[in-house]
C-alpha cells in the first residue's frame, strides 16, 4: 500500500523497479487434476488500462482471472500487487486489496434481495446486528451511481439475466476498486446497457483502476481495449496493442493456425426441406414468431447474442422447450412437441451445449454413453435383450472413427478431456440413422485439434446429404461454416443472410439494437 504513493521513484521494497504497475504476474502455472490449465503465463496490468484477455474456451482465460481474483491459488509463479509480492488466499483477501471480479457464472443467491446480495459477506452491522437501513441506502447509492434501474429490495430470482448481470457488476463496485475483472460482461446486456457499462469502465479507468476484460468481440476490443493478451492451451501467445491488430491476425494467434486450415471448404447442395418451423413461439417467450427451415445438404447458422433465444429455438424444435404457439414439421410430418424419443426415431438429433449438465453420464463408460440412445436397435439389441458384444464392437468402431484419446471405451467419461468428451457426444449421433443434426454450441470448451475434427465431421455430414442447424455464439464458426444464417435478437428473427451476404459486419450488425460499427 505504502509503496504506491510518492516514495515510488526511490526504490521500493522489491527490485522490479515498476512501482506503477498494478499487477505483475510471472511464470504462473496452475495444475488441476489431469489438466495443466495455465503454463508459465506472464501478465501485467497498469493503472487506468483495459487489458483484454483473448483466447478460445479452455485456453486458460477463466483460470487466469480466477487466480487474480483469489478463487484459485497458483501451483507455481508469483504475483506482485503494486510492486509487492502477494499470495491471494481467498476471494475475500483479494477484495480487501480492491480486486473484484464479475464472472460469467453469477455468484448471486437467488432467494436474497439485491441489497443483501451486494453486501453479501460484508454486511453492515451495528453492535453485532444487521444495520438494514444503512445497507438499503448504500445499495441504492451504488445502483444510482452506476445508473442501473433496479430497486434494492427486489429478490434476485425474479430478475432477468441482464438485470442479474447488473447486480453482479454493482457488487464489484461496492468496494474501492484497484483491479476490476470483467468476464464477457456484455453477453446479456442490451446496447444501451452496454454503452452504460462502457461509460463506467471509462470512468474507472480515469480513476486509475486497472481492468482485465474478457471478450470475443472485435468491436468491444476496438472500443475500449488498450492491450490484448492472447492465450492458447494455457500458454501466453502474445501481448499486443489493441489498435495494431486486425481480426484475422487475432484469430490466427488464438487458434495457432491460419484460418483456412481451421475451417474446411464445404460443398453445399441444398435438397429437400428437412425441418420447417412455422411461427415458433415458446411458452416462456424466449422465442417469438420465428419461422425457418433447414434443407438436406446445407448448414444453417443460428446466431445472436447470448440470451437471444437461439438455443431455445433449437430446443423447441426437438420438443424439449414448451411451445406457446407455432408448428414444427420434420420431412413434412407435423412433429410439434413430440417426445425426444420419437424425434430420434425419425432421424432428428439434438446436441446439447452443456456436456456435463445435459449430455453425458459422467460416471458411466464411453460405451454406455455412446449406445444410450440406440439401445432398441441393432447391433445394440437382440431379441429384446442388450447385445453387449455388438455394442462393444460398434462403439469401438466409432471410437476409432472419432480418434478418441485414449481409445479405451470402458473408461468412464469423467476421465476424458473436454474435447474427447465432445467426441463421445457426437459419436452418439452416429448410432442412429440421423438426417438432421441440430448442434448447439458444438465446440464449447474443446481444444483446437478437436475443433478442427468437429468441423471436418460437420462438413462430412453435410456433404453426405444431412442437414445441419448450427447454433453458435462463436462468430468465426458461423461466418466460415454456414451457407445460410438466421440472426435472432431478443427472441425475434432479425435477418436471414445467404452465401456471400454472410460477412462479419452484416452478421454483427444485426446482433445489436441498432446497427453497430
Amino acid at each position: 500500500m505504502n509503496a504506491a504513493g510518492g516514495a515510488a521513484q526511490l526504490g521500493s521494497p522489491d527490485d522490479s523497479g515498476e512501482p506503477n504497475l498494478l499487477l505483475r504476474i510471472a511464470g504462473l502455472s496452475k495444475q488441476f487434476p489431469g489438466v495443466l490449465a495455465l503454463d508459465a503465463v506472464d501478465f501485467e496490468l497498469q493503472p487506468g488500462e483495459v487489458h483484454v484477455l483473448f483466447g478460445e474456451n479452455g485456453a486458460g482465460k477463466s483460470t487466469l482471472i480466477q487466480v487474480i481474483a483469489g478463487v484459485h491459488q497458483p501451483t507455481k509463479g508469483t504475483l506482485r500487487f503494486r510492486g509487492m509480492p502477494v499470495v491471494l488466499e481467498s476471494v475475500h483477501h483479494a477484495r480487501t486489496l480492491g480486486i473484484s471480479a464479475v464472472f460469467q457464472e453469477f455468484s448471486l443467491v437467488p432467494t436474497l434481495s439485491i441489497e443483501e446480495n451486494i453486501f453479501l459477506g460484508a454486511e453492515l452491522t451495528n453492535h453485532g446486528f444487521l444495520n438494514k437501513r444503512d445497507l438499503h441506502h448504500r445499495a441504492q447509492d451504488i445502483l444510482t451511481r452506476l445508473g442501473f434501474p433496479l430497486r434494492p429490495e427486489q429478490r434476485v430470482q425474479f430478475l432477468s439475466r441482464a438485470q442479474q448481470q447488473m447486480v453482479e457488476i454493482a457488487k464489484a463496485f461496492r468496494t474501492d476498486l484497484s483491479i476490476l475483472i470483467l468476464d464477457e460482461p456484455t453477453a446479456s446486456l442490451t446496447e444501451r446497457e452496454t454503452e452504460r457499462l462502457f461509460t463506467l469502465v471509462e470512468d474507472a479507468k480515469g480513476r486509475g483502476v486497472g481492468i482485465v476484460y474478457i471478450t470475443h468481440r472485435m468491436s468491444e476490443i476496438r472500443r475500449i481495449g488498450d492491450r490484448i493478451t492472447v492465450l492458447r492451451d494455457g500458454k501466453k501467445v502474445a501481448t499486443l496493442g489493441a489498435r495494431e491488430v486486425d481480426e484475422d491476425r487475432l484469430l490466427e494467434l488464438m487458434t495457432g493456425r491460419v484460418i483456412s486450415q481451421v475451417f474446411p471448404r464445404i460443398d453445399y447442395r441444398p435438397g429437400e426441406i428437412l425441418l420447417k418451423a412455422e411461427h415458433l413461439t415458446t411458452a416462456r417467450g424466449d422465442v417469438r414468431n420465428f419461422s425457418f427451415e433447414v434443407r438436406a445438404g446445407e448448414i444453417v447458422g443460428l446466431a445472436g447474442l447470448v440470451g437471444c433465444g437461439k438455443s431455445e429455438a433449437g430446443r423447441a424444435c426437438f420438443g424439449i422447450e414448451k411451445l406457446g404457439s407455432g408448428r414444427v414439421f420434420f420431412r413434412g410430418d407435423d412433429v410439434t412437441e413430440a417426445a425426444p424419443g420419437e424425434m430420434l426415431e425419425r432421424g432428428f438429433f439434438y446436441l446439447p451445449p452443456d456436456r456435463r449438465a445435459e449430455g453425458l453420464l459422467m460416471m458411466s463408460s464411453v460405451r454406455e454413453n455412446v449406445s444410450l440412445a440406440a439401445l432398441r436397435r441393432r447391433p445394440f439389441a437382440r431379441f429384446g435383450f442388450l447385445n453387449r458384444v455388438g455394442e462393444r464392437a460398434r462403439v469401438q468402431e466409432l471410437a476409432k472413427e472419432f480418434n478418441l484419446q485414449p481409445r479405451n471405451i470402458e473408461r468412464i467419461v469423467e476421465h476424458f478431456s473436454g474435447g474427447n468428451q465432445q467426441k463421445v457426444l457426437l459419436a452418439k449421433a452416429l448410432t442412429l440413422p440421423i438426417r438432421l443434426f441440430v448442434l448447439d454450441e458444438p465446440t464449447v470448451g474443446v481444444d483446437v485439434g478437436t475443433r478442427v475434427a468437429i468441423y471436418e465431421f460437420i462438413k462430412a455430414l453435410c456433404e453426405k446429404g444431412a442437414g445441419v442447424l448450427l447454433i453458435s455464439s462463436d462468430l468465426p464458426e458461423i461466418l466460415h461454416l454456414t451457407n445460410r444464417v438466421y440472426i435472432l435478437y431478443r427472441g425475434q428473427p432479425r435477418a436471414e443472410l445467404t452465401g456471400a451476404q454472410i460477412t462479419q459486419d452484416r452478421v454483427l450488425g444485426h446482433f445489436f439494437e441498432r446497427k453497430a460499427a
Partner: protein
Amino acid sequence: MTSAAASPSSAGAFALRLQHVFVRMGVLPVLLVTAIIVFTLLSDNFLTEQNLTNVARQSTFLTIVAMGQMLALLTGGFDLAVGKTIAITSVIGAMVMSGYIADNPDSSGLAIAVGMLAGFCAGTMVGVVNGIGVAIFNVSPFMMTLGTASISFGIALTLTSGTPVYGMPDEFGSIFGFGVVLGIPAPVIVTIVLFLIMYLMLSWTRMGRYFYAIGGNYKASILSGIRTRFYLFMAYVLCGALAALAGILLTARLETGEANIGASLPLDSIAACVIGGVSLRGGVGRLGSVVLGAIFIGLVQNGMDLAQIQSYLQEVVIGALLIFAVIADQLRQRVLLRLRD
C-alpha cells in the same frame, strides 16, 4: 500425491494398486475381511458351517430389500418405505390367508397362493404409489416414501389393531420359512433366483441400463429419448415388489402377520447399498457388491449376537458403519479424481 510415474518401488506400486481396488470396489472388501477376522477371534462358533448357513438365511430378507433399494438409489432417489411395505405385506397376506383357510379348511394350497398374492399386491401397491408421486408429481423421494411409510404403517395397524395375525396354514411356514431343498434353506433359494433375475435385468436389458442413465444424468437421459418418468416409476414399483417378496418370506418365517416388523430395514438396506459402493448421487453401483453389503451387515449382526453384544448396542454399530461408509465414499470420489491420469 503419489503420482503414477513417481518411482517403481514395490511399496509405491502396491499403494497405487490398493487405491485402484478401493476406487473400483469401495470399502467393502476391507470391511468384510476385518469383520471375519474380528468375529472369528471373538467366538469359536462363528466360522462354522452351521453358523454361516444361519447367516445366509438371516441375510436373505435384507438382501432382497437391498436389491430393491439399489434400484431407487441408482435413479438418484431412495425408498424409506421398504420397512412398512413389508409390514403391510405381512398383515394383509396373513389376514387373507387365514381368512381363506377359515372358510375353506380343505384347500390350504389355494389359501397360501391367494394370501401370498394379496400380500404381494399390497406391498407392490406401496411402490406404485411411490412411483406415481416421484415420477409424475415430482415429489422428492424423501417426502414421498416417508409419507407412504406412515400411510402403510397406519393401515397395517388399523387392520390388526396392533396385534399379530394368526391362523395361517402350517404348510406356509414349513415351506417358505423353514423348508430346505438340497440342503439349502428355501428363502436362500428364492434370494438366489431373484438375484439372477435382477442381474439379467440390470446388465442385459434396456430397463437396467436406463436406471443407471437416469441417475447418472437425468437431462441427458431425456435427450437420449428415454421415457424417464416411466422408468423412474418402474424403479419404485420394482423396489416395492422386492420388499413385498421379502415381507412374504419373513411372514412365513415368523408364522404370524405383524405390523411391527421391518422397522430397521430402510436404514439397513441403504447401508448395505452404500457399503457396497452404490453412489447416493445415483448412476453408480454393482449388484454383486450390494448383495455382499447385505451379507456383511448380516454377518456383523450375527457376529455381535455370538459375541453377546446386546441388540441395542448393535444399532449403534450399524449406524456408525453407515456413516463410515458414506465418508469412505466421499474419499473414494476424491481418490478417483486424483487417479484420472
